[in-house]
């Protein structure tokens, strides 16, 4: 019997797979996420664990499957544990961040470059893109930042959850996610369309336009509130 046959049999008959946590092998049920599988093996996450929903970037994971030579990068809470995974968690990335006051800086062509001069060292190797668990085109947004296009950098980096895997792998020591965050902040402050209607509404609130209504709702009991809520205007198909 080949190794693979044994493995497959084990998975089918017993419903278990072998995973390696920091090199040590554990039998865990198949069908668990990497995070749950590690917990099943008896580990308690005090770091490298957060929302468990693929949104916070805490559970950055590097793994290699026994039968492959390449490294893969993912989030522990989003990927199912597979047979032969050699797993390691990356709870923290010590990437330097430029300190700036958004109220004091201007957005000119060189702003991002001035705060993160190392982006000029980008050799276009694309390792960052290959390390991203969110399928973001990381190198592209760094290139956009390099030529002063904060809008494009902000747009391309939108899904970033700041897991830090890109920064750890970069041969030029670029801190991609910090660069992107700066771009998004600059975009929001200087380039995004303004919303004057928000200012109008805020003023209305401050002027007490809605005070009477809010007071009224505060005084209602739960039954009345529920009845009002059920009777509200809403679109067809919207679950109440």
């Amino acid at each position, binding site marked *: 019997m080949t190794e693979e046959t044994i493995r497959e049999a084990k998975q089918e008959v017993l419903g278990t797979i072998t995973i390696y946590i920091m090199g040590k092998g554990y039998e865990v049920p198949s069908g668990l996420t990497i995070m749950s599988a590690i917990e099943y093996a008896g580990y308690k996450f005090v770091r490298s664990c957060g929302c468990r929903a693929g949104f916070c970037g805490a559970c950055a994971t590097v793994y290699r499957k026994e039968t492959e030579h390449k490294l893969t990068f993912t989030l522990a809470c989003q990927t199912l544990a597979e047979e032969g995974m050699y797993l390691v968690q990356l709870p923290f990335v010590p990437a330097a961040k430029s300190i700036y006051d958004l109220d004091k800086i201007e957005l000119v*062509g*060189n702003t991002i470059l001035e705060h993160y001069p190392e982006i000029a060292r*980008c*050799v*276009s*190797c*694309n390792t960052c893109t290959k390390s991203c668990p969110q399928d973001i085109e990381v*190198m*592209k947004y760094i*290139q956009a930042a*390099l*030529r*002063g*296009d904060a809008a494009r950098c902000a747009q391309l980096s939108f899904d970033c959850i700041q897991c830090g895997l890109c920064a750890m792998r970069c*041969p030029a020591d670029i801190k991609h996610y910090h660069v992107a965050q700066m771009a998004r902040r600059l975009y929001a402050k200087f380039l995004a369309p303004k919303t004057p209607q928000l200012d109008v509404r805020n003023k209305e609130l401050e002027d007490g336009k809605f005070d009477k209504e809010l007071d009224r709702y505060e005084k209602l009991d739960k039954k009345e509130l529920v009845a009002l809520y059920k009777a509200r205007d809403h679109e067809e198909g919207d679950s109440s």
Partner: protein
Amino acid sequence: MGQSGKSEQKPKAAITYYPGCTMKTSATNYERTALAVAKNLGIELNELDDWNCCGVVATLAKDDLMHQLAPIRNLRRLQEKGEDKVLVLCDMCYNTLRQSEQFIQDNPDKLATINAFFDQEGPYKGGVKVIHFLQYLRDEYTFEKLKKKVEVKLKGLKVVPYYGCMLLRPKGCAIDDQEEPRVLKDLMETLGAEVVDSPYKIECCGSYNTVEQKELVAKRTYRIVKAARDQGGELIVLSCPLCRFNLDERSRLAQEMYPDFVPLPVMYYTQLMALAMNLDPDMLGLEKHYVDPRPLLKKKGFLHTDAAETEMSD
């Protein structure tokens, strides 16, 4: 393309254009004037849709493949789009891309390694021709044809062509004679200007040393600009944004280091072409220069007061 009445509509020459980072930041005036000139000549320059920084300087180490990635990525993108040639404005980008193409032609084994590294991104097969705008104007458009488009002869303007390094060295990249280039001279004479030769026309401006060793560059600025002025030149014309920065912006430091130094205005050939072709003077971007060329141009009658005062916001 529709036919208007009886006049014959010449098909536009279309070519993909690689801008490079500087065209989008400190040399927006060069790009703007180049695109305007091209449009006026019936040349369609289509910016490459997806590009990255060229890498700035061609790597000299034969086993350094990491620094070939940036330029080759751009060449591969061109190939993906079915392009077999690309037009470049920036001399540094021209040189870097051209040298990379030459490198992989000469070293197919190194190309194999690079393609192995690219992996699923896809390989580059080689074969994209890198052309500088000056080359294109001289060889494909021709200066004879250009002469017909000159509406304002730059008569009485004493220009000193300056080449620097990137269009002439190494030999494989040279678009002209390496010791006695003449493309800028011929272009300027086509525009009606009076060309003044300078012995330092192919002297290096100091290039990227302007970042860490400003004084080294300012010393060269002093020497190059002084020689141009001593020969009777009034204006330096060039094609490289880095040279422009070093001969123009670094004049500021040269003035501090050499109290007797009097700078000269420095312009791109495309800005002079735009003037000669009587294009909108508001888009020349002359306010971006440290040594203001406007007083000279006004004195010679090529710029009119009200037009020159308008500042172009980038």
